[in-house]
């Protein structure tokens, strides 16, 4: 379980934080509402999850709420039986 969370957290750090940014984020850091991931950039995260876990997330489920923290994303992945 925590392995999936770690993978997602690592991707978010690399994808959305600048190298010189001294911000630390954890599983519960608000990503969309906290301004770390904007709505334009959410597509990368969605495509990453789909490719990594071989799933298709319908647009209706790829909501800002579902993507707003690593914990929320983990919950979403559970719906797709990702273990």
């Amino acid at each position, binding site marked *: 379980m925590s392995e999936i969370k770690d993978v997602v957290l690592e991707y978010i750090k690399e994808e959305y934080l*600048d190298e010189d940014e001294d911000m630390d984020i954890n599983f519960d850091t608000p990503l969309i509402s906290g301004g770390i991931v*904007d*709505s*334009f*950039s959410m*597509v*990368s995260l969605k*495509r990453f999850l789909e490719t990594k876990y071989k799933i298709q997330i319908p647009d209706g489920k790829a909501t800002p709420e579902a993507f707003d923290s690593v914990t929320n994303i983990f919950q979403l992945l559970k719906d797709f039986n990702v273990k």
Partner: protein
Amino acid sequence: MAFGKKEREHLTNELKGIVNDGIFKEERIICAPQNSEIDVIFPAGTDEKKVINMCANNYLGLSSHPDVVEAARKGLDHRGYGMSSVRFICGTQDIHKELEDKLTKFLGTEDTILFPSCMDANAGVFESFMTEEDVMIADRLVHASIVDGMRLCKAMTDTYKHSNMDHLEKKLILHEDKRLKLIITDGSFSMDGDLAKLDKIVELAEKYNALVFVDDSHSSGFIGKTGRGTHEHFDVVGKIDIITTTLGKALGGASGGCVSGRKEIVEMCRQKARPYLFSNSIAPVIVAASNKVIDMVSESTERRDKLEDNTKFWRKGLTEAGFIIKDGETPIVPVMLFNAKLSQDFAKDLYSEGIYAIGFFFPVVAKGQARIRTQLSAAHDMEHLEKALAAFIKIGKKYDILNKTKEEIIAKYGN
């Protein structure tokens, strides 16, 4: 009445929130033509004050140039005041077509379409030719008007870290399956004054079969050895598929913008771009003056050369005085202060010294990146710049920030 007490209270509270957040914007009233020296009333109710203008986009000093004003006057006499029509009904005069042809030649593209502003050009261009099967990949610091244009378009959106070519390449690989891939960037970034790496972007576009879009609003007329823009600076003229730019900055400073590029894309804009189809034609007086401006910048590089000299003097002077400025070569020169309040206090003191420049802070720039943004003009003479530099140094000493590191300034004032 629908707009009653409850509605008024709601909006009053919203406005109070903007004030409390420190982002309430106030207009300074200028009682003179736009120029390097202007008469300003600020705050409201005070006397007019003559100040040196260090914050206009009047890069070539053409906003009030007598030849441009004369061309506008002739345009008014010969083609009237307004068109009372959109372009495709009865709003296209011979001078509109003349200006589109001149811009095409000046920018080195295939065709050009005028819009009421570059904001409108950016709002209309993407949705005119891109759909769900396509992807737009934008630099994360592109101008707000591009962000709005992308929102209006149904194509997939993605971003890459500012000027990070490795990250852009990853995104091009990620979206390789899409029909049209469009890389979107500003030419000069208006807050930091840095240039997009257009040579590298074009290389990646060719490698991954993508198109390139550049908003050159802060470049057209003065970047590149003959002022054609960032594509001339990076020697990629003819390789940029879409250039949007404005007539509201260096090129006369009135208003109007355009999409210039591949003729099929321009034609799609003529058929489908909503700000073109549903907004009035640019007024003849502005079109006539803009035709004169393009003639002037095509015939001589004298004004962009003076701007370049002014920029070198200003960047060197600030650096030698011990300020931290953003590296670059454009006439947008941010003086870094890091702390929001310090940027506001510094701008206020500059104004007292007769220098008009604006402090920017979050959310306009990133947190901890507050600065005074200065902008040079060919209308500045050496005496203006020497006076402005002396004022910056005087105030820099007052706040004890000269020859200090970023960390030292933050330790003193916070970020």
